[in-house]
Structure formats: structure tokens, C-alpha cells
């Protein structure tokens, strides 16, 4: 490597540059967080949505499914499952179908991926659906490209 760059110069560039980029990063994240909080005014995380997220976490759904593309890629994307089930046109119907789906697992069909049976109470199931509905309404820059998720 060139003789003009000394070790202490390289070190100083590293520390200075890292601090510089980290400050920019923190600034941008702070701005992003403020936009999320603004969005939450018209699109609030209700107690039911928050409870739904707890149900989602309790059963480690993310270790099979994905939500907004993040998860285990083993089972369908659920960030837009509300839309896929027609929740925008028929909210009551979508809610019933989603709850029924969860209750009827595992399917036991040979050669098909199995979702475990989770004992989820009726109010918790409703909360979970509220969480899916809330998530489907987040402005994700039009991701996913197709309703298939």
C-alpha cells in the first residue's frame, strides 16, 4: 500500500469517518422514527393490535412465515394476508376465514407443509387479525409487488 498513507492517518480516517457516518445514520433514523410516529396518529397501534403482535410473537410465527419479507421463508408472507383474504372488500368474511384457517391446523395432508395447532383464544385470534389488518395498511412503498406476497 502507498507510503503516503501512514498508519496513524489510516486510524484517524477510520475513527473520523465512522463517527461521521454514524451521526448521519442516527439523524436519518431519528427522522424516520418521527415519520412513523406521525403515521401512527391516523393509523394507531390500538391495544388490540399490540396484543395481536404479542400473540404473533408468542407462537414464533416468524420462524416459518415472513412479515414484510422478513422471517423464515417456509410459509406464506403475512404482511398482506389481510388483503389476500379480501379484507378490503369484505372485512367480516376475511376475519372469519383467517380465524378458521388457524383453528383448523394442522391439515394433516400428506406431502404438504404443516402448521402446528395453536390453542389461541377467540379474543386473541381477533387481536391477531387486527395486527394483520394494521400491518397490511402500512405504507410499504407498494411492496410486495403482487398480492401473492
Amino acid at each position, binding site marked *: 500500500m502507498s507510503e503516503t498513507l501512514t*498508519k496513524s492517518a489510516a486510524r484517524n480516517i477510520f475513527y473520523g469517518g465512522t463517527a461521521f457516518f*454514524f451521526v448521519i445514520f442516527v439523524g436519518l433514523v431519528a427522522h424516520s422514527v418521527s415519520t412513523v410516529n406521525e403515521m401512527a396518529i391516523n393509523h394507531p397501534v390500538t391495544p388490540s393490535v399490540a396484543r395481536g403482535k404479542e400473540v404473533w410473537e408468542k407462537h414464533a410465527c416468524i420462524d416459518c412465515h415472513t412479515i414484510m*419479507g422478513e422471517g423464515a421463508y417456509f410459509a406464506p408472507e403475512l404482511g398482506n394476508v389481510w388483503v389476500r383474504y379480501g379484507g378490503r372488500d369484505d372485512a367480516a368474511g376475511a376475519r372469519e376465514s383467517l380465524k378458521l384457517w388457524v383453528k383448523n391446523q394442522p391439515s394433516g395432508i400428506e406431502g404438504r407443509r404443516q402448521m402446528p395447532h395453536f390453542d389461541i383464544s377467540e379474543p386473541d385470534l381477533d387481536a391477531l387479525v387486527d395486527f394483520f389488518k394494521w400491518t397490511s395498511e402500512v405504507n410499504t412503498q407498494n411492496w410486495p409487488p403482487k398480492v401473492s406476497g
Partner: protein
Amino acid sequence: MKYESQKVALYYIAGALGLFVAQILFGLVIGTIVVVPNFLSELLPFNIARMIHTNALIVWLLMGFFGSAYYLIPEEAETELYSPKLAIIQFWLFLFGAAAAVVGYLFHIHEGREFLEQPLWIKLVIVVVALMFLFNVSMTVLKGRKTAITNVLLLGLWGIAVFFLFSLYNPSNLILDKVFWWWVVHLWVEGVWELVMASILAFLMIKLTGIDREVVEKWLYVIIGLALFSGILGTGHHYYWIGLPAYWQWIGSVFSTLEVAPFFAMVVFTFMMVWKGGRSHANKAALLWSLGCSVFAFFGAGVWGFLHTLAPVNYITHGTQVTAAHGHLAFYGAYVMINIAMFTYAMPNLLKREPYNQILNMWGFWITSSGVTFMTFALTFAGVVQSHLQRVLGMGFMEVQEQLGLFYWMRLGAGVVTFVGVVLIVWSLVVPGRAKAAARAAIQPAE
């Protein structure tokens, strides 16, 4: 090995190797569930086996980092470890935490965020483990010689602990949850872990090639500079589609493209050092792993990362098997290989054996690397087909998965090959081989 206290590294290396085998076994289990869906479906659901697979990986890599640090720091600082006893207590506490987590998972006791499934009390145990470790190594460096390598290593290790604290923050707003979840996940593997990796690599280059420390340390600062200048804002590539402003598409695309640079620099660095160094070190296997590490990290983290990091591409590929392909090759190249390189270098010194079972170890290198490479190709092809069918044509997820069966079988086969390679690696490190008289004669007085 010059200092008696370096021996605590043996605990960590043994623990890491054990968990490495467990990680691959659980990988085989979930690889099998993907192709034979009814396999164990009642007893061990996919999500549980998967969290054991990923958690075992993370824990053994960290354990390897701890062990590497305990080996490296006394030698660099030229002083005994501050407290070998504390290091041993820390090991058992960490192993206990990891074991308790796995047993808990089997009984469905877990939290629900990917990779951070550990119950709160285990997260707190991990914090305590980290504090014990940081206290011990920091005190050692403070009383000893300070080198660029220990500086960078400590910075990386402190960073790991600091960013782990974000795992304790779980807001009920999913968007904010994701924003700060990435502060653990991304700022670890595409941030501070790279500091740990680069400093271990620099240490190995000094030892194995005999190149002047000044040159190596200057390279080290350049490499980690490139890593953090690109990697910090590169976090943006995770902020594209989770409910954040669109400017992240530009920031993430530009800076994560630059994330290839530090990995390319590592390839140039390691090959230059070996070429210019001219020392023929007896531990050929450690050198092979060191060079392999930079090359595989470049392809896995660098090239396979770039493959799907540009926002318009990621829009189509996000959350498909393309991501899985990248994840496997990147973790293998960057963090598995740096750990095995260090273990391969350190074990003969720690056990006061001559570099042994070199041939077996190198077979392990080639077989494991072939397995992971083939797996990466299988998953990449699966991911491309999936992206097209699901994201362009709009076919349903399960329907698309049925089209990918062949790729998943190939992945499972590659997984079996990987497992064979891993067994060879572990065997070659743990079981003493017959030292050959000729090899002994060739050994030069290098550490």
C-alpha cells in the same frame, strides 16, 4: 503460545465446535422438513427447529470470538489474562444460558422475534456474560501493550455488547420494532462483527506470513474503515419496504453496493501478505482457512449481497430463497471460516502439539466449502425461480414452493456433504494425529 492464561481459549473452542455440530444437525432437520413436510411435524415443528439452527450458529460464532480473543489478546498485549478464572466462569455461564435456551425452545418457551427468541432472563444472562468478558479483556489490554489489533478487536467486541442492548427494546409498533431489530442484526454482522473478523485476520497474517506489523495494521484500519463507512448507512437496504420513507432506497442501494469494497480489500490484503511474506509456516491448514475466509466472505457477503441489494432488484427478490442463499454463504465465508482459521492456528499451540491432522483438516475445508457452495447455488436458483413465479407472475406461495422441490433436494444433499466436512474439521482439531517426522523437521521457529 506464550502465556499460560491463553489456555482458557480451549473451553470456548470446545464449546463452539460442539454447538457447530448441533447447528448443522438442526439444519439437516429443517432441510428435511422442507422436502418431507410431515417429518417430525407434531414433535418438532419447523419454527422450533429453525430457531435452534440459527441460535446455535450465533452462539457458537460468539463463543469462537470469545475464545479467539482470549487466545489473541494476551499474546498481543504481552501479558497474562487479567483473570483466567473469570473467563472460565463466564464460559460455563454462557454455555448454561445457551443450553437453557435450547431446552426451553423444545418446550415452546421462547420469545417471538427472529434470532432474538431467547426469553428475557437469558438475554440478561448474555448481557452479564458480555460484561464479564469485556471487563476481563479490557483490563488485560489496559495493563499490557496496546496494538492496533487489540484496539480494533476491543472496539468490535464492545460494539457487539452495546448493539445487543437493542434486543431488549420491543415496541408494539411493528415498524419501530423492525427499525431497531436491525440495529442488532445488521450492525452486528455488517458492522462490528467485521471489526472482529478483520482483526483476527490481521493477527493471523502477522503470525503466518511474517509480514511487518506496521503494514498489516495500516491495512487493518483501511479495511475496517471501508467496512463501517459503507456498512452503517448500508443498513438502509433493510429499510426499503417496512414502512419507512422512500429515501432509504437510495441510501441503502448506494452504500450497500459499497459494502463489497471491504471484502474485496480483504482478499487483496491476505493474498498480498502471503505473496510478499515468503514465510513457509508449518500450519498450512490455518493459512488455507485464512485465505479461504477472505475469498468466501467476498463472494458470500460481497457478491451475493450485492446480487439483491439494489432497491429495484430487492423489490422482486426480498424475502425469497435468494436471501437464504446469501445468508448461508455469507455466514460461512465471513464468520465460520474466520473462527475455524483461528481454531486451526491456535489448537496445536494450545495443546503443545505440532500442526497435526493437516490433511484431514484441509479435506474438511474443501468438502465443507463445496457443500456450502453447492447449497448456495441451489438456493439461488430456487430464489430466482420463486421471484419470477411469485413476484412477477403473481402465483401463490405454496403453489410456487411445489415447483422448487428439486432445488430443495439438492440443498439437502449439499447439507449432508457439509455435515461430513464439519465432522472432519472437528475431528482434525480435537483428535491428535500422528506427527510425521518429515513434517516435524520442516517446522520453522515461528509462532
